[in-house]
């Protein structure tokens, strides 16, 4: 059996187990065990992958297999991974496990909550291991639907509005996407001259440039909606603000990565000529969202809104980097996805912990928390520093790779937009340090805060699961970057720059 299937079987078994576990305590234990196994499987996958590469296997995708679905339409379920998907699978496993620990205290409909959460994660895992457009789309939808329930049922504030808005906007994106994917299918041809959904076969056969010009923008925007592409990002602040903690973590940490990954794997990889032709337009759009998100974050008062706008800025940088179409920037884009996934999940986890204690998310209503909640505050500072790109933490490696890569284009247009994107590092410092200064430092604002309980063991576990990779990636990024870079070779060849 293909070991990649494990990544679907473990969550499926976990969901099965959850259906039979009632009460308040049992579901979370089942979820924790299941996701720990999933994490172990992801780690094992990384090791197996590296071992295979070290043994000299240079195939584009490893661990491939293919299962037939609808024969006469040539729809198959094709599996396979490369360095990019492996690293994102690891990210997903980490964030999901952390999310389960952070949700330790969810007791209303605990069973249903964890089922939805794990279904969502399953969709994401399935998306990352698929190498055909049909199953990718299927898993994509599988990830989006539970989100609606999770926000609508366990959310807070105007949760129906937020859930509806989020789902509708993402669905609108998938409508674009579906047209794009079907278009790709009908213009594709494999060796046997059949239409195909298989990514590798489509890439090998090539898509005519006229079709690319039509379908590139459709797929890029379709995936871009999920990657918070301006101006289709407004589901993100409202959605995050209403979502329960673990859902925000998974959503910003992992689900938004589907957008970036899709743009990279489908839009750019299959339609490189159109990408090169049309990148200028999207560079303006994404470069703009980098600065726009950062400035938007300055004025927010709600922690979740700050983080949502900050995500617009950071995810904008992912898409911006993808559009640079060269090795260094693309590596940076994947690194940025991982880095953003880790730190934004961490942020949402911490915001959840703070909210449970202070019952507010408004920055100005808190103050002096460093003294009372040293663990949470210290981790918040680390997350903040990672977000503003401090060396030694993950954000720095990613951002610098992107900037160096973007600078490889010597023309004025690229230079100007790169420098504008770089300038966001200053604005980011402003909004991060403002929060740290007001919320964590200064005198204790409310006398009641002096007796807040410190972090519990499950909160610490969840936070450390995210902090340690942030540190590890920031201090020793070489193996990860090399793993990603090696997998870009086919894409670069398609782009004609490898």
């Amino acid at each position: 059996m293909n070991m990649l299937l494990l990544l679907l079987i473990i969550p499926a078994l976990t969901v099965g187990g959850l259906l039979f576990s009632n009460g308040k305590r049992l579901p979370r234990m089942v979820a924790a065990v299941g996701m720990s196994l999933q994490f172990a499987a992801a780690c094992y996958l990384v090791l197996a992958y590296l071992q295979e590469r070290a043994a000299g296997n240079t195939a584009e995708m490893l661990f491939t297999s293919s299962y037939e679905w609808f024969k006469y339409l040539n729809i198959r379920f094709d599996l396979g991974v490369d360095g990019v998907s492996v690293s994102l699978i690891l990210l997903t496993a980490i964030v999901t496990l952390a999310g389960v620990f952070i949700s330790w205290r969810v007791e209303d409909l605990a069973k249903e909550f964890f089922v939805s959460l794990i279904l969502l994660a399953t969709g994401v895992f399935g998306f990352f291991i698929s190498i055909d457009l049909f199953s990718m789309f299927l898993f994509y939808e599988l990830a989006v639907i539970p989100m609606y329930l999770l926000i609508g049922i366990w959310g807070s504030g105007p949760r129906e509005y937020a859930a509806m808005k989020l789902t509708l906007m993402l669905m609108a994106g998938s409508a674009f996407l579906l047209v794009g994917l079907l278009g790709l299918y009908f213009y594709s041809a494999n060796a046997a001259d059949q239409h195909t959904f298989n990514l590798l076969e489509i890439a090998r056969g090539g898509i005519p440039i006229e079709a690319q010009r039509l379908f590139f923008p459709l797929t890029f925007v379709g995936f871009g909606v999920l990657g918070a592409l301006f101006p289709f990002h407004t589901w993100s602040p409202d959605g995050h603000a209403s979502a329960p903690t673990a859902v925000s973590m998974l959503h910003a940490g992992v689900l938004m990565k589907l957008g970036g990954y899709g743009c990279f794997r489908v839009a750019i990889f299959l339609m490189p000529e159109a990408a090169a032709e049309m990148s200028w337009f999207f560079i303006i759009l994404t470069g703009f969202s980098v600065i726009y998100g950062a400035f938007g974050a300055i004025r927010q008062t709600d922690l979740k809104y700050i983080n949502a706008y900050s995500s617009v800025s950071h995810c904008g940088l992912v898409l911006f980097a993808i559009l640079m179409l060269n090795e260094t920037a693309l590596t940076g884009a994947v690194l940025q996805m991982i880095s953003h996934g880790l730190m934004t999940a961490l942020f949402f986890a911490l915001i959840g912990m703070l909210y449970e204690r202070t019952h507010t998310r408004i920055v100005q209503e808190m103050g002096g928390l460093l003294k009372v909640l040293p663990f949470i505050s210290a981790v918040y500072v680390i997350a903040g520093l990672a977000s503003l790109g401090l060396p030694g933490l993950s954000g720095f490696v990613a951002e610098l790779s992107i900037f160096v890569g973007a600078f490889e284009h010597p023309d004025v247009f690229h230079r100007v937009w790169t420098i504008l994107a770089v300038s966001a590092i200053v604005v980011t410092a402003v909004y991060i340090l403002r929060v740290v200064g007001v919320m964590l430092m200064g005198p204790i604002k409310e006398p009641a805060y002096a007796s807040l309980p410190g972090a519990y063991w499950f909160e610490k576990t969840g936070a450390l699961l995210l902090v340690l990779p942030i540190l590890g990636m920031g201090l020793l990024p070489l193996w990860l970057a090399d793993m990603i870079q090696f997998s870009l070779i086919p894409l670069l060849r398609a782009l004609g720059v490898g």
Partner: protein
Amino acid sequence: MEGYAYTIWIILLPFLVFLVTGVLSLRIRPQLAGWIGTAGILVTLVLSLLTAWNYFSAALPADGGWPTVIPVNYTWLRFSDTLVVHMGVLLDPISIMMLLVVSIVSSMVHIYSLGYMKDEPGFARYFAFLSLFSFSMYGLVLATNLFQIYFFWELVGVSSYLLIGFYYDRPSAVAAAKKAFIVTRFADFGFLVGILLLSWYSGTFDFLALNNPDGAAIAGAASATFMGASVLTWALVLIFMGGAGKSAMFPLHIWLPDAMEGPTPVSALIHAATMVVAGVYLVARLFPVYHMSGGAALEVVAWTGAITALFAALIAITQEDIKRVLAYSTMSQIGYMMLSLGVSGYGGEEGLGYTASMFHLFTHAMFKALLFLGAGAVIHAVHSNVMGDMGGLRKYLPITHAAFLVACLAIAGIPPLSGFFSKDEILAAALHHNPAIYGIALLVAGLTALYMFRLYFRVFWGEEKAYAHKPHEAPLVMWGPLMVLAALSVVGGFIPFGHYVSSDRQVMAMHPEMSIAVTASVVSIAGILLAMWLYRRPSALPAQIAGSLGSLYQSAKNKFYIDEIYMGVTKKILFAGIATPVAWFDRHIVDGTMNAIANLTARISSVIKGLQSGHVQQYAVGFVVGVLGLVVIFIYWLKF
């Protein structure tokens, strides 16, 4: 080269100490964290001394120049096949000199802090941050390439942020820490773009390749032009922008005076002796490139330095807070170092400015750290930073007084103390290359003597205040370091610096020029005498002079309103002009459009919904109207 592999531990050891004390800071006894930190830094001091000894006692290679040794260089990240980032150790005369400066001052500050910070609640955290800083600073000075220096550059920035904000429950400290980080971050934005430009054209980050005198690596950048200057010049000016931010050069200096909110030993270490001179070190590190780029970039360095030196000295005369006087003095002295680099040529006697700048960096680190630690002892004794609360302290603090006097004489440039020698070289270099800058430098020398001795006389002489507690001398852990630094401030000037440090690495003989030495000494002594006349005894004279100077005095006292200008720009333009409209635009226009689309859909659906009413009559009417309409269209329009 073998034999220096242990130098990597100079960087790693403080990092390990940081991890241990940082993670355990809430668990272990605070005193223990202090001892671990101090022990760690003393080990690095020993290693640094050993390195310096090994390096400088080895025979010079055949070409007579000091070698560049890279004992350790790990591959840290690969951007592409050609552009690789290393992390390693580069040993050459200036990095070893910096190594000595950092390890000596940091060790003294660690020991001193054991006493000074004794009763602070965050004692363990303080030592963890000090170790973090030491780690970052070592990594910075030993960097083998631009990327590594940028890496540690940001880390010293964050250590500085954490330490300025050490007293984090004071709003002023929080504001100062934030300001320091953001201002230097803004400068680093320029630095980063400069690095990107330079590395794109040269295909390397490595100092060894960039500094190669044949200029091969930088040829591409030198030949491309942008807006009338070569790209190389632009890149170097941008890199200098980073240096200017870190080294508090005008107009990026506004964070340094506020940074005095941090504990005084931190001011001594970070904001006087080590981190703030990183900008000077950066320019010196790339000096061959600056030289090869033609004169424009160095001209910018020289004038920025000169203007800062004068500007800060003028403000220093008017300040009341003892630490702020020292902060402006630091700015002014760093301006001195910068201008010296700016006027320097390359090779032989031409490179005097380079040697002088490094020399001054070294001597300044010693006497300025001494001044700050001395000021700490004073503050410790009277529990105030303001000079108005001090006076006549020489009786109570004899040891501090003696050390402080030595430092004041050294900074004023009185022979034979160390400041005299280094300042003399700077003046000589300036005179030969740019008489206008020489004039400014000479004036600043006089002003330096004036503001330092104004401080000295007002604190240790003048009228004795009614102290709540009788001020008492600091304990041994505090005055011990003072003695060490005082000794170094006295003898530091006798180091034959030109022998070790010169622009082209060759041994350079330095010839003190009598005329300059005499002029400078006379100017300094005049400054001291003026200060003595005005401040030794309580008198109304200073106030009268200030009054007669009117607006000039007022604007200097208000730091020439630079802070207000910055506040105006950030509040009015960035916050009110950009951030607020962006937030509004996003909520009302972008999101409004999305909501409008949704509402429109709902509206249309409610209209269409009405059509399917279930009334057969309605359907029949629709049917008839439809048929008639089609008939009309077919007959009259399509003309069947």
